[in-house]
């Protein structure tokens, strides 16, 4: 079997993608929670900010030339070589930086009381901006790996969609854990269940199409996940723990919510989402040249 790609460390870039998606759709969830007039969003907003900072830490940890980061970025900006309209990674660098700034402002707004700050963060345009940036960060986290023609398993339009669904589930799980209001809880259960179904379909599609309609490398990756060395992590972690269990709990809680069950569902969904990204990265193999 062609070897798994070891270029991007799945245990560094996996968490990076997860945290970026969490912060991204979490930002969208924040805006919706503000609109629903939920108060006490201090913990929620700090979790988002810490997520995006942690995402940046993880991604920088995978760099092989981190000492050159600042110098290279500055030089490439000022010599006009920065690939904003060419490279998803460049887009990501900009988006993550902007998102980090915005989420810092948000977290600060819910911690200290500065008139100027409140005015900015509470403004309508800020919400629109935050929503857009949050969505884009999530989408970027999918496009980043999907745009790599070297690894056919990733090279599918399904990845950004799946990432979006999975990150949304994570945002809802975060809300479930940190926000204790009945209407929010009801919404998270129902929306979460629906999204879990969609996510399940997307995962099945990703793996099924790779194995039965894909190129040699895609087939190898799919096989590794379904039957091969990654099967326990995939079936156990991603599917059973990450999707089916929360889904089952969601269905059971459709009418009546049990705090403990829902907390468990949220934690399991979060773990599953992280595992999803890790195994997808691990499963990547290059197309054999001949």
């Amino acid at each position, binding site marked *: 079997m062609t070897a798994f790609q*070891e270029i991007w460390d799945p245990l560094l870039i996996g968490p990076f993608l997860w945290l970026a998606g969490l912060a991204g759709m979490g930002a969208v969830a924040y805006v919706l929670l503000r609109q629903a007039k939920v108060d006490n969003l201090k913990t929620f907003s700090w979790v988002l900010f810490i997520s995006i900072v942690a995402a940046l830490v993880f991604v920088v940890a*995978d760099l092989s030339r981190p000492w050159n980061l600042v110098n*290279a*970025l500055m030089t*490439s900006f000022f*010599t006009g070589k920065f690939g904003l309209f060419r490279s*998803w990674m460049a887009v990501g660098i900009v988006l993550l930086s902007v998102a980090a700034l915005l989420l810092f402002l948000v977290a600060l707004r819910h911690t200290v009381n500065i008139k100027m700050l409140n005015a900015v963060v509470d403004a309508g345009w800020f919400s629109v901006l935050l929503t857009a940036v949050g969505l884009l960060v999530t989408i970027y986290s999918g496009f980043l790996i999907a745009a790599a023609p*070297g690894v056919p398993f990733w090279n599918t339009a399904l990845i950004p969609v799946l990432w979006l669904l999975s990150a949304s589930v994570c945002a809802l799980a975060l809300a479930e854990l940190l926000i204790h209001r009945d209407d929010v809880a009801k919404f998270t259960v129902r929306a979460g269940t629906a999204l879990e179904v969609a996510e399940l379909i997307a995962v099945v599609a990703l793996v099924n199409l790779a194995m039965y309609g894909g190129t040699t490398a895609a087939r190898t990756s799919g096989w590794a996940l379904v039957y091969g060395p990654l099967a326990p992590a995939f079936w156990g972690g991603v599917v059973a723990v990450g999707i089916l269990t929360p889904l089952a709990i969601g269905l059971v809680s459709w009418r009546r919510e049990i705090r403990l069950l829902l907390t468990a569902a949220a934690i399991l969904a979060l773990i599953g989402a992280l595992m999803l990204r890790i195994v997808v990265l691990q499963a990547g193999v290059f197309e*054999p*040249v001949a």
Partner: protein
Amino acid sequence: MTRLAHLWDQSRCIACGACIAACNAANYHSTDMTNKTWGWLASNIRRVEVLRGHRPLLYLIQCQHCEAAPCVTVCPTGASYKDADGLVKIKPELCIGCKYCMVACPYNARWLDEETGLPRKCMEDECLSRVKAGLDPVCVAVCPADARAFGDVDDPNSEISRRLAKSRYVRLLENKGTEPKYFVVVGP
């Protein structure tokens, strides 16, 4: 326009390893550092044996210096770039080591040099210096079986052009849209 390119003749190659080892000697000072990306030596050329039919086939893979190089597209800082001579090169001062170029390359033609953190590939410093001086890259210079050529495919009188004109050749993974400039000759 200048478009420098490599030719490798699969019908002549005797797998002697000279090009692979010479690349390590000339460009990497004969280092014994392991190339962990490929599980290989520190060289820009790797070898793939395909077991098929009556006997196996050999492929030597190195940077294809694609016209539509995905590694250039995905590089956030412009460290990976296509030069006016047609070769895909790297500016180490712009490289942050994000390795996007490595996963983007369908040929897995880049490998991580753990000492510098750079994503290495053909052509490296010594070969670039030789080409600038009008010499062949080392892999071409050492080949005993006349299985390699290098030059400007836009110049009809260059050795590579003349060789291509009298050979049947294929390119690897053409359907990836990379427009590779590594010509694999399969026969006259």
